[in-house]
């Protein structure tokens, strides 16, 4: 088990997090939603603790807690006064090994998750379309499945399915402990030995996932729904993440340059796309671009816009294509690159101000294949990004590459 301590003594409080290197993309085919439903069930009982007692204990000591499931990882955390840290570690270690999956509780919690799915996804046409974009963009990689799972597969998950996922992935060798706050390594270490140290480590598991075939065709997904009152448009290209970038080989490590690129063309009120489509041409009420480098598997580079009333999707799409073409033809300017790099550094300083931000950044990096030195060297790597690298990354990801274009529209022509 890898352990990370981030000392911050502002208040006598700690954030205690355990991250498992298993997320929705590690589920077996047909078992979508298993990672997330299991995350919910981790709040039920263990061989040593009756159902519900975990949360009651956290509440009784004045702690707050939650958990999250992502494509690449599942995490659990509590924020507590530092004197209760070891009690949290004891309980977290207990449910890492001794979870009880009661069939009746599984069925009840399944209903909760189905409601969660309705609330997050099915109640919102935009979210429904985003699921289809993901399904189209990733033809073979398990990122094509929604984290929360497909409804019919959530309904079909058995206790055995959940047990199998738990047994395979939940063990110290596949977990990372992050403790941030009023704590030092010297004080944490004996506590960790008394708690997680008692569990057999198991062996780290290689995550064998299907990979993408060469993509040769662009795709369009369209959702027309009477509920939609504000149309929107997006286009997504497959792009390397930091991790997949490494395996591309020398000269093709585009992830840092793509982070800068997304800031220059699509990040905020002075970016190229917003200025052109929203401020000057007035074709869109909002517009931008986005990229995230964090995934263990492939990532994407996306453009998005919502049309001004009276502007057709076709006009908007052509305008956005014009922006992309201009970018590829003229490239980005040195000034813009310098500005974006500067504001990225400031964000990093701001992140130091929050107790949980540091734990979040480190945990999510380590659990999806990066190292501490990746995290620490990030500012230097961003500082090193050149205009040429940004332009090369734009060409590699956007020029004549297949993409997925998504249109969300109401039933009346807009």
């Amino acid at each position: 088990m890898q352990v990370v301590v981030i000392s911050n003594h502002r208040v006598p409080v700690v954030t205690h997090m355990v991250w498992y290197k298993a997320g929705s993309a590690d589920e077996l085919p047909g078992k979508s939603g298993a990672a997330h439903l299991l995350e919910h069930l981790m709040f039920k009982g263990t061989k040593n603790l009756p159902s519900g007692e975990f949360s009651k204990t956290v509440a009784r000591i004045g702690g707050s807690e939650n958990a999250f499931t992502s494509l690449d990882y599942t995490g659990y955390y509590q924020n507590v006064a530092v004197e209760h840290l070891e009690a949290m570690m004891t309980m977290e270690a207990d449910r890492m090994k001794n979870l009880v999956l009661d069939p009746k509780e599984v069925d009840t919690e399944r209903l909760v998750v189905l409601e969660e799915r309705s609330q997050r996804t099915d109640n919102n046409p935009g979210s429904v379309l985003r699921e289809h974009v993901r399904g189209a963009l990733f033809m073979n990689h398990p990122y094509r499945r929604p984290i929360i799972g497909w409804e019919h597969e959530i309904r079909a998950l058995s206790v055995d399915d959940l047990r199998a996922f738990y047994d395979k992935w939940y063990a110290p060798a596949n977990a990372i402990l992050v403790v941030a706050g009023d704590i030092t390594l010297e004080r944490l270490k004996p506590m960790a030995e008394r708690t997680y140290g008692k569990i057999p480590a198991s062996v780290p598991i290689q995550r064998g996932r299907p990979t993408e075939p060469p993509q040769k065709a662009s795709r369009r997904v369209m959702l027309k729904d009477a509920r939609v009152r504000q149309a929107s448009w997006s286009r997504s290209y497959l792009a390397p993440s930091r991790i997949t970038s490494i395996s591309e080989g020398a000269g093709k490590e585009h992830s840092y340059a793509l982070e800068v690129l997304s800031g220059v063309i699509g990040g905020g009120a002075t970016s190229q796309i917003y200025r052109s489509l929203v401020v000057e041409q007035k074709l869109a009420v909002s517009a931008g671009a986005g990229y995230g480098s964090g995934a263990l598997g492939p990532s994407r580079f996306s453009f998005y816009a919502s049309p001004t009333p009276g502007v057709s999707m076709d006009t908007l799409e052509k305008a956005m294509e014009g922006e992309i073409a201009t970018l590829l033809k003229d490239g980005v300017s040195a000034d813009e690159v310098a500005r974006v790099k500067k504001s990225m550094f400031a964000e990093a300083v701001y992140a130091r101000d929050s107790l949980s931000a540091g734990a979040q950044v480190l945990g999510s990096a380590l659990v999806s294949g990066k190292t501490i030195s990746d995290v620490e060297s990030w500012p230097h790597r961003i500082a090193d990004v050149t205009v040429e690298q940004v332009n090369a990354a734009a060409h590699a990801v956007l020029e004549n590459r297949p993409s997925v274009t998504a249109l969300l529209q109401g039933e009346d022509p807009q």
Partner: protein
Amino acid sequence: MRFLKLIVIVSIVTGLWPCEEAQANHKPGHMVNVVRVISPGGIEAWLVSDHLNPIINMRFAFRGAATLDPEGKEGLANMVSGLLDEGSGDLDSQAFQRRLEDLSIVLRFDAGRDTFRGRLKTLSDNKDAAFALLKSAIGSPRFDDEPVNRIRSQILAGLRRSSQDPGTVAGLTLAAELFPGHPYGRPVEGTPESVKAISGDDLKTFVHERLALDNLVIGVVGDIRPDELGRRLDQVFLDLPASSKASNVKEAQPQISGRTKVVKMAVPQSAIVFAQKGIKRDDPDFYKAYVLNHILGGGGFTSRLYDEIREKRGLAYSIGSYLYPTRHAGLLRGYGGTANKRVGETLKVLKSEWWRMADKGVDGKTLKDAKTYLIGSYPLRFTSSGNIAAILVSMQLENLGIDFLDRRNSLVAGVSLNDVNAMAKRLLDPDNLVIVVVGSPEGVTSTP
């Protein structure tokens, strides 16, 4: 986002990872110490100096916001909040935004019902520019046609989007049900018609009438000392008018009618919101109600509503209740979401929990656990400078006193079993809960 200096990493216990690095941080811990700063010009701010990071966070609020929007111009305060960072003084919108971005200064405004709030976050190195931009934003906003039209379009797009969001529609419907004829019944963001009716003069009038020294409170946290803050306060705020236009908003009496209202929408899950009379923040019994609500439907994973509706029956993903004290009314409100065919069952359980609490109250152990939680979790709110600055502002808006942080936990601790159970009987009114359901609920209809 990803730059952290204070990292220690070791491998322990299971020995699968090599030891990579060990470096401890020995900065001393310190408590939150609130200082009252009065500027040479007489402007007050509450300050927590904290030099750990080179960051300054300022939050401030002007009393009086959306409730004062003129009839037919609902959404005015909200629109101003979207435009103060869109050009002022010599800088047009793009120039202003570019200056903020170049210097990584965060400057934002938000309008609520009762307060118009602002936040400024800057690195210490850029504080001169940050305070100058803030002064310009509140003192000489330009309201040029281009940003006014653009922000108006964005607000209208947001209204179109949220008009089909069940949770948003439920909240607006509930407000209208509770406060007919009172500004609290109107939408903070306005309606498409009212937003289109707002003129440039309206925007200027709002700034002139509302942003004044007599209704301003300020909280600051971070890398700045009291004497310097005093000078900065005068620099930023002293040119504002001394007094704001008097508020004509009356105390509001919510219509606690026991009515159920269903708004039809084609969604698989119905959004449910509900409310009854609550208690205001300055009520001497506030903490009794606060502890009571925590047990009934408050935060965390242990409230009765959570337990009965989610844990035991799987009826909802989110369910809870909260005290909603505003300047002119007190409410106890709640929310939930459940499949259309289970709305009836959910409402039944909700009401029966309301009855059970009113009838039987709570036992000593439940109260003790609740108080331990509310006391023990309080420090968790002090884990970022922005949060602390926001608390400093709230303390002033609610007249809680500068020593409130020292007294707050004893106020919770002082709530007795008798207090909570008497409050449950006095406050909870299950027959008169006003309920709004947005969706296609089966077997639940509007009260005629």
